[in-house]
């Protein structure tokens, strides 16, 4: 072996001697050593930018911005703690632990100061309190829909999650040197708003997160600890061109693919059918979830009720009265809410002739912060927990309870409304004393079509009731069809202005669109309006319930499929009067059923029995293929077919199985990618990388290199462990050449630090070694090397087991110390005796 190398080494030695006298030894591929000190801090800054940027997108999932400052403080404290530890050259395993400790301290200091030792050290009390807060957060998440109120529990949870994301990103980027995968952490943050918010993650948050990600990559590249990341070559022209081409291609694919794949944004992955990660949270608040509820084939959130009313009863949960131009939103007049549901008195005047109706309701698994009650409630009895009501809308909301498993009795007063009374009701001027102006507010950017339609419909009509009827009649006319699919396929499932305009053009939609169209047009026409969300009258279950010793009442049941939205218009002296513009749904009240409308169904509860052509849309919708599995909740992934799920699962399993192989191939490709230096024709592979690949290759086939082996010993050991291979073997020759290259690279003069053999040559050499190793191993060894390469698995194992090893060492040290103490004590005792 040495004789073979002799000639080559000699010439190199000669040239090396000549070169060494000319130039100072320096390796251009390595970054200056002194700058490594800034690495932890630069990386910390980048991670902080990325995570805080990503968290910006949580606005909309969490209400307002109050949560941002604790989140930012947490993130900054954790990154700084880890950077500090890294600057102090703490062991690699200790840095994430330090991050965890810093996270615990800052969370205790911020949220659990009273329960913590010294105000920031977590103790049993703070853990207990933290769990209380987590429970509260869980309830909030479960009961409310986005945006949720940022209470202490929610903010604590957010800070904790983001702190953990910081530690994850840091661990990926620095000790594992996988900066690119640190994007997963940022993605994890962005996924939350993307799945929950109807409008997605939002551009600002995404941009800042992306900037942070690029900073992380840049830091890793700039301060790369060795030429593995080929920092010197990062500025090369070829590199730049390649990255521009790659980036452009990725962007183009990202933009074109959704257009090319059928059903990418329609049907299969509609914007509106976002996942509800919290299962059966049918809070009914946003109209978005309402669309999903309606498309559910199985009726979740079943509510049963029995009522003494002879007319069909709508169960009303919440009022949507805020129209901010973008979309309708529920009221949030928290300040004016009153506690106690024993007596509920609206702040507006009700007519004198009222009918009292008693309704017994069992909510079962239906979970919402709002209580479904027949309008208008006068008293609710039998509730668990504290409940409050809004005098303006009469929505009943739990202060510390949800509607889950409630069994209660509602006394409602039904005003005896007649068409005549409505016709006589005065025209209420917008903004009159009785009602705040908010019920007649119309955004300035109202699409023309809405205004025009309203104008056309109410032209020449003075009476408010007549106007309302005209609008209702128009919406219930044959022009409009009820469809759960149309809006979804149109790419909208919301209640914003643009959706409204689309709806009026396409004339197809469901209750949300009908209700919001009527409410907006009513406002345009000067009638105060709002939208009520709840349940249309359901179906009799066949059971009877005896209430308060009276004759048994028929029990009805409603579920998610009966979810409904309808407009309520205000008429002075009569209060809020419900209308029913949605064809084929619900029942048109007697007073509004004056006109001959195709969908008008009087007070028939069984709407399915009514022969309306439009009806066909509904059974279809119920038999939608690919709704989520039963019990996964109304909002969960509606519209994703089973087969797709199975396919995705299978793909995932295959990817999981193939991941070691793919990653191994990726590592090999990265090592062999090489780098171009100025004036060099072909990409050269650093001998160190080629050597690493050789060692990993050997490891894959069961020849494990030992740390105490010199490169040469390793090569000799490899030959000895392969009895079939001769010294003249192509594989053995390749091993010798790779070894010689690496020795020269690692131990030779820096000026001699040749950039290494070309990528092609190195790949050929490694292929020869691989062929040799394959021929020397059994089929089992070959299978393992292909699919579960030990080089990769051992690396994973080392990474995972690092904390345990560290712990083990600590325990061993403590044990030795204790043993010494005991031994000394025994000696002292003996001497004393």
């Amino acid at each position, binding site marked *: 072996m040495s004789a073979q*190398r002799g000639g080559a080494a000699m010439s190199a030695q*000669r040239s090396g001697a000549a070169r060494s006298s000319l130039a100072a030894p320096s390796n251009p591929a390595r970054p200056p050593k002194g700058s490594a000190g800034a690495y932890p801090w630069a990386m910390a800054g980048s991670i902080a930018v990325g995570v805080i940027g990503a968290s910006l997108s949580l606005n909309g999932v969490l209400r307002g911005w109050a949560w941002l400052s604790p989140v930012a403080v947490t993130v900054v404290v954790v990154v700084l703690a880890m950077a500090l530890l890294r600057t102090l050259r703490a062991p690699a395993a200790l840095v994430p632990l330090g991050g965890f400790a810093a996270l615990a301290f800052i969370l205790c200091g911020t949220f659990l100061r009273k329960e913590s030792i010294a105000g920031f050290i977590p103790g049993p009390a703070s853990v207990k309190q933290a769990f209380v807060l987590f429970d509260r957060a869980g309830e909030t998440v479960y009961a409310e829909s986005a945006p949720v109120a940022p209470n202490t529990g929610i903010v604590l949870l957010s800070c904790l999650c983001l702190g953990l994301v910081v530690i994850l990103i840091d661990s990926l980027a620095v000790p594992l040197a996988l900066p690119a995968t640190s994007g997963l952490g940022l993605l994890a943050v962005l996924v939350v708003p993307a799945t929950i918010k109807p409008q997605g993650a939002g551009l600002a948050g995404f941009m800042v997160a992306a900037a942070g990600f690029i900073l992380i990559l840049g830091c890793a590249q700039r301060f790369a600890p*060795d030429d*593995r990341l080929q920092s010197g070559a990062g500025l090369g022209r070829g590199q730049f061109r390649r990255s521009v081409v790659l980036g452009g291609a990725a962007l183009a694919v990202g933009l074109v693919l959704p257009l090319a794949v059928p059903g990418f944004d329609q049907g299969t992955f509609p914007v509106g059918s976002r996942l509800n990660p919290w299962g059966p949270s049918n809070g009914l608040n946003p109209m978005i979830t309402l669309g999903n509820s309606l498309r559910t084939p199985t009726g979740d959130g079943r509510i049963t009720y029995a009522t003494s009313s002879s007319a069909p009863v709508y169960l009303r949960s919440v009022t949507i009265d805020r129209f901010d131009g973008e979309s309708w939103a529920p009221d949030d007049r928290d300040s004016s809410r009153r506690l106690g549901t024993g007596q509920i008195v609206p702040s507006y005047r009700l007519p004198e002739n009222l009918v009292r109706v008693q309704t017994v309701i069992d909510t079962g698994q239906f979970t919402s912060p709002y209580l479904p009650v027949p309008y208008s409630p006068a008293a609710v009895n039998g509730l668990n927990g504290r409940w409050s009501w809004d005098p303006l809308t009469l929505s009943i909301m739990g202060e510390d309870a949800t509607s889950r498993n409630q069994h209660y009795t509602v006394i409602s007063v039904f005003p005896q409304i007649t068409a005549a009374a409505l016709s006589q009701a005065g025209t209420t001027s917008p903004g009159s004393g009785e009602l705040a102006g908010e019920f007649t507010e119309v955004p300035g950017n109202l699409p023309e079509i809405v205004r025009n339609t309203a104008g056309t419909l109410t032209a020449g009509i003075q009476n408010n009731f007549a106007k309302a009827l005209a609008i209702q009649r128009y919406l219930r006319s044959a022009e409009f069809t009820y469809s759960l699919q149309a809006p979804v396929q149109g790419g909208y499932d919301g209640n914003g202005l643009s959706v409204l305009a689309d709806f009026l053009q396409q004339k197809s939609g469901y209750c949300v669109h009908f209700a919001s169209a009527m409410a907006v047009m009513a406002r345009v026409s000067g009638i105060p309006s709002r939208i009520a969300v709840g349940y249309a009258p359901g179906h009799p279950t066949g059971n009877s319930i005896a209430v308060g010793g009276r004759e048994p009442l028929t029990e009805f049941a409603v579920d998610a499929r009966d979810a409904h939205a309808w407009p309520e218009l205000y008429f002075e002296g009569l209060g809020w009067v419900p209308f029913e513009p949605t064809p084929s749904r619900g029942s048109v009240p007697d007073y509004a059923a004056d006109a001959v409308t195709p969908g008008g169904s009087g007070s028939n509860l069984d709407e399915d029995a009514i022969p309306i052509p439009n009806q066909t849309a509904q059974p279809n919708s119920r038999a939608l293929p690919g709704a989520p599995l039963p019990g996964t909740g109304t909002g969960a992934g509606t519209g994703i077919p089973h087969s797709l799920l199975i396919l995705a699962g299978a793909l995932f399993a295959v990817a999981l199985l193939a991941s070691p192989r793919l990653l191994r191939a990726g590592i090999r490709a990265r090592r062999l990618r090489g780098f171009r230096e100025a004036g060099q024709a072909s990409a050269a592979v650093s001998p160190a990388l080629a050597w690493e690949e050789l060692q990993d290759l050997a490891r894959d086939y069961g020849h494990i290199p030992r*740390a105490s082996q010199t490169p040469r*010993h390793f090569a000799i050991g490899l030959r000895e462990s392969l009895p079939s291979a001769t010294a003249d073997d192509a594989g053995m020759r390749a091993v010798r050449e790779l070894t010689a290259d690496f020795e*020269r690279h690692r131990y030779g003069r820096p000026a001699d630090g040749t950039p290494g053999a070309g990528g092609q040559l190195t790949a050929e050499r490694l292929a020869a070694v691989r062929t040799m190793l394959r021929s020397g191993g059994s089929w089992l060894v070959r299978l393992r090397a292909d699919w579960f390469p030990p080089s990769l698995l051992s690396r994973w194992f080392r*990474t995972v087991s690092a904390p345990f090893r560290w712990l083990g060492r600590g325990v061993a040290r403590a044990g030795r110390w204790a043993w010494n103490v005991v031994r000394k004590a025994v000696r002292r005792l003996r001497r004393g005796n």
Partner: protein
Amino acid sequence: MEDAPAQAGSSNGHRHTAMPAAEFHAASEKILAAVSQVIDGKAEAAKLALTVLLAQGHLLVEDVPGVGKTMLAKTLARSIDCGVSRIQFTPDLLPSDVTGVSIYNQSSRQFEFRKGAVFANIVIGDEINRASAKTQSALLECMEEHQVTVDGQSYKLAEPFMVVATQNPIEMEGTYPLPEAQRDRFMARISMGYPDQASEIEMLETHQAVSPLAKVTPVVTAADVAAMITAVQQVYVSQAVKEYTVAIGHATRDSARLRLGASPRSLLQLLRAAKATAALDGRDFVLPDDVVAVAEPVLAHRIILERKAAGAGDTPQSVIRAILASLPVSKDAAADTRRA
């Protein structure tokens, strides 16, 4: 005891230019070939002796009588055209016999210095452990300082200068064992060991009639050797190899089986020997393999075993082998694999 030839001091104070690699290789091959004419089957020992010569160290050859210790030293000396002197150490040998003495010259009426045996390029100290401690230390001072001081006057020794001392194992009768401090001055200690059967038969045949030593003619000059030494000095040592060398030193000091570990001087000599090994292998940079190759001969005679370890059958050689077998070659080897 032979007297030193006059040409010894010819290269004093003069820096040689390094010998080019090709010539270096040829010269070393010639020397080794010459030595192997005489010493059969001991190529390793011969190479190590040459290594020590090129690394400017001194060699201690320790073994039982009659295995060719002196023959090795003589052959090496004979194959180089340089001054050679041989001192047979006996209990009555005086320090002045080694270093030289000032004698009053009647005719010039002045004291003039009569050079001792140490004034030669290669000094063969035969059975060094038979001399008294005083005489031993006189030689050892010359080895360290490369000069002799008599009556306040310093005399430079020849370059290259190498002492090849032989000694019988200390268990033999009538020996004064070298103290640790003095053993430390020798760069390496080798044992000849018995030749294998074939070599021994061949030796019996060839050495019957004439002394094979007579056949050995000088193949290189002293100036050549000096140029070779300069070339060795220019061999590059990377940071990684330095770290590895230091790690070996630390491991011997931390070893529970050793009472005395390797001194900093021994690490310096280890690295020098490694440089010479690298040059002999045709490289201009040191590999960890070079360090490993010379670690045993360079370190074994300097370290002292714990009593328990000696009782358990350990030898200095076995301890060093164990250390080398467990010591990671590169400090960041683990980190390297983790990062990738």
